[in-house]
């Protein structure tokens, strides 16, 4: 039951882009076409799940036992940066076709704040499932990260679909490009607010 709650809350209610403002850079940067948006989402899902698993283990089995939680930011970002590199190298060897599809997005993910953001949220934010607020356990953390990645993908793909249409629309000169995209994103965020009562 709590897994369903986590998924609905992360995908719709607290959508990572539209209500948490994490990962807005790729959201605006690579959302011109549906196909690239889908590729980016795929790569993010993969990295986010693996990164969350690794940082979760690091937090509870290294940082906390050693009493050096203040090194969290440095450790997490180094892990994510090296992980992205590793994924890139492994993907090239194991599945060249997957690399062809997702490879070009991988270097961009290091500076995608959604990945670091979710990794930090997982070990710091308390969630409520009816009872008392509590931190996530490991399986919940993985589900949370994947659900957030799905939320990221959903927002990306919806938005890129809208932007493909906007390309053809006749908008005033000053609105062209990013401004009208931002306003559209605002309306999309407004629509997502309708999910607020769900959980």
């Amino acid at each position, binding site marked *: 039951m709590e897994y369903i709650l986590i998924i609905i809350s992360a995908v719709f209610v607290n959508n990572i882009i539209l209500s948490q403002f994490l990962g807005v850079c790729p959201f605006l940067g690579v959302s011109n076409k549906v196909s690239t948006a889908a590729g980016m989402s795929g790569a993010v899902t993969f990295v986010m799940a693996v990164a969350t698993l690794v940082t979760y283990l690091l937090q509870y089995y290294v940082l906390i036992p050693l009493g050096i939680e203040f090194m969290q930011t440095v450790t997490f970002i180094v892990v994510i940066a090296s992980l992205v590199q590793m994924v890139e190298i492994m993907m090239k060897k194991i599945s060249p076709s997957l690399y062809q599809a997702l490879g070009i997005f991988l270097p961009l993910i290091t500076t995608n704040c959604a990945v670091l953001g979710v990794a930090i949220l997982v070990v710091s*934010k*308390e969630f*409520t499932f009816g009872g*008392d607020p509590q931190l996530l356990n490991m399986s919940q953390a993985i589900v949370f990260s994947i659900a957030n990645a799905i939320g990221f993908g959903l927002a990306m793909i919806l938005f890129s679909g809208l932007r493909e249409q906007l390309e053809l629309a006749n908008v005033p000169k000053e609105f062209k490009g990013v401004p009208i995209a931002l306003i559209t994103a605002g309306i999309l965020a407004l629509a997502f607010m309708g999910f607020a009562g769900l959980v």
Partner: protein
Amino acid sequence: MAKESTLKNMLLTLSIVTLAASTFLGMVYAVTKGPIEEAMIQKTNSAIMQVVPEFTNDPSSDKLLVDLSGKSYWVYPAKNGDNLVGLAVESSSSGFGGRISLMVGFSSDGTIYDISVLSHTETPGLGDKIESSKSNFSVQFKGTNPDEFKILVKKDGGDVDAITASTITSRAYCDAVRIAYEVFKQYLNDNK
């Protein structure tokens, strides 16, 4: 200009950079550790000062745990000489965005003296009106006795005016206040 990359100098550079960074951070941590703890104590103390009548003791060194239905809550007795003038109770509940932690202060007769929000993660502009600096929501609790003033939002049959469009937050706030009152009664019982 940037150097040629060889495995040796790459490894060496990265190790030196990380080592230097962690040493430096360790130093900064050692320096700021004291002030960070102090800031947290200061926060608790100023919350206590706000929510109970004037006292002469040091409530945070007199603090003790009160058990209530399987859970423990910190209480901070405020004393004037030997007389108990008030009690600050730290309680929490689940709001819309996560945990809402309150410091609820009671006068010795059981009326609510004042309430201060210790921490919350409610939506800015909506749920964050529980903070006394953001709206008058918390004022309605002042000077009321939870035995007569029903600490439930009006929708649930109580006497509390909920924050517009933030019923879940208002409910959670009331929950925490009610828990605090139960803790207060338990404390009086324990210390008869």
